[in-house]
């Protein structure tokens, strides 16, 4: 395992220390060492909280900052933060107008958030939640409650964070974030596995010459293992899966996000995006804004995800709002 580590059991805490040192202009620490907050949370606005397991940089702490998330709870690698961390993140995010907790659909996160929301309520903090479930490959269309949240969470945070920054009420923020994720679909293709530092070897295999279509952000198996394809074929597969799963039609405007899973050279993400853009354009869908880079990763996995969000006027305004975070700065 060729990695930059001290004690693998401390990696999350050390990473957080380094992160806080490097981004002191954007984020700051809190009383809970597993909770990071934005430096300048505007008073008198709805708080936007998130959280999730580590190993997905920039997610989740990389999306804390002005006009995006106010706080993030930080879990172990691939594991939900504790309920206590979520609770503290709500406390930090709350400016008296309630908190929107926008997170991804994983069993651990669901349990911990649920508990934290209950505890927050006892303290008089109103927390409402939106659970991202954009990963088309993770369950059939008629079981949206089973679908995982993946890179589409970024659009959810963008919409929710922007709505809160623009002065939206808690219900409006929740509605905007919910609409964003409802209009968003994602799919991933995995090319190589990843190794959890404390485990020391990959915990799943992707055979050389094959690819795992629909892989999850923790290496969860996808829909299909098939022979490795060329970039244009991968793009076609991804676009078919994503665009085929509702809401997109000819004439739509969309935001597109192509994220590497960590170790795929960014150069190749542009090769992939070049093909994706042709295919989406070819369907008469207009790309209003696009993001290409390592936005939501899985340690050192190779591969990429495609996320598409259908825009209406509100979502367009929200997506276009400037933000400054470690993961995404938009002027």
């Amino acid at each position, binding site marked *: 395992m060729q990695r930059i580590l001290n004690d693998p059991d401390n990696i999350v805490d050390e990473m957080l220390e380094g992160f806080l040192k490097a981004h002191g202009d954007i984020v700051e620490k809190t009383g809970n060492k597993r909770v990071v907050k934005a430096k300048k949370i505007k008073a008198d606005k709805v708080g936007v909280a998130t959280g999730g397991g580590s190993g997905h940089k920039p997610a989740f702490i990389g999306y804390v900052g002005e006009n995006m998330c106010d706080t993030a709870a930080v879990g172990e690698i691939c*594991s939900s933060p504790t309920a206590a961390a979520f609770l503290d993140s709500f406390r930090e995010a709350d400016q008296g107008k309630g908190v929107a907790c926008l997170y991804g659909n994983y*069993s651990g996160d669901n349990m911990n958030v649920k508990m934290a929301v209950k505890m927050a309520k006892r303290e008089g903090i109103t927390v409402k939640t939106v659970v991202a479930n954009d990963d088309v490959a993770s369950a059939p269309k008629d079981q949206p409650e089973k*679908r995982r949240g993946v890179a589409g969470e970024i659009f959810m945070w963008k919409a929710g964070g922007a709505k809160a920054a623009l002065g939206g009420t808690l219900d409006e923020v929740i509605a905007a974030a919910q609409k964003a994720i409802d209009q968003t679909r994602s799919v991933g293709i995995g090319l190589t596995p990843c190794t*959890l530092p404390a485990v020391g070897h990959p915990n799943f295999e992707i055979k050389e010459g094959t690819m795992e279509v629909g892989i999850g952000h923790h290496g969860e198996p996808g829909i299909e293992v098939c022979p490795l394809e060329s970039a244009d074929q991968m793009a076609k597969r991804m676009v078919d899966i994503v665009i085929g799963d509702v809401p997109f039609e000819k004439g739509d405007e969309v935001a597109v996000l192509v994220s590497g899973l960590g170790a795929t050279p960014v150069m190749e993400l542009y090769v992939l995006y070049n093909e994706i853009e042709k295919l989406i354009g070819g369907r008469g869908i207009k790309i209003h804004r696009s993001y290409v880079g390592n936005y939501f990763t899985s340690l050192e996995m190779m591969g990429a995800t495609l996320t598409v969000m259908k825009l209406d006027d509100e979502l367009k305004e929200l997506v276009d709002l400037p933000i400054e975070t470690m993961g995404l700065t938009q002027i």
Partner: protein
Amino acid sequence: MGTFYNKDGKSVLQTVVKGIQENKAYLGEVDGLIGDGDHGMNMNKGFSLFETRFKEEEFTFAEGLYELGNILFSEIGGSMGPIYGTILMDAGEAGEDFDAIGTKELAQMLETGLEGLYDIVEAKVGDKTLVDTLAPAVEALKASDGDFKSALQDMKAAAEKGRDATKDMVAKFGRSSRLGERSRGVLDAGATSCCIILTAMADGILEYL
């Protein structure tokens, strides 16, 4: 019949900790097959944290379960924080006032833990989760005629059987539930760790019987 003293619980908890530590890699492998491979690492981290933190402390069996659960719940998180956190804290609380612990008392503690779990998850027996280990283990204790030694052996056997049964199940909850039929054919990680915990607990107690 037979009982052990609640105050002798530290060594039992140590046996449980050792059981998890020794199986860290194995649990990671099991979780890796249809999950994300972190189960062994997180369990090991939480259990080892408990071991170090309470190395110099005195505590009863019930207190130890509670504190272990609390560490999982408030410092480890993941799925195991709420799940084992709830089971162990609730079981510990239920045993707080016991002086001596025998079949009935252990059954009552673990059942309280199981019921606490049912409050937060929807999984039932057959859904390929740790419920498949814990529920029959509790049943075995309750059904046992009273001799603690043989009740513990029954519990171990039931836990093992329950764990093994998860192999042929299709996961309904948790990460692997999205795999549908693809989840069949391998053990459930939580059911496996739960069996390790219960087995070690029984072995630890048997030392005193």
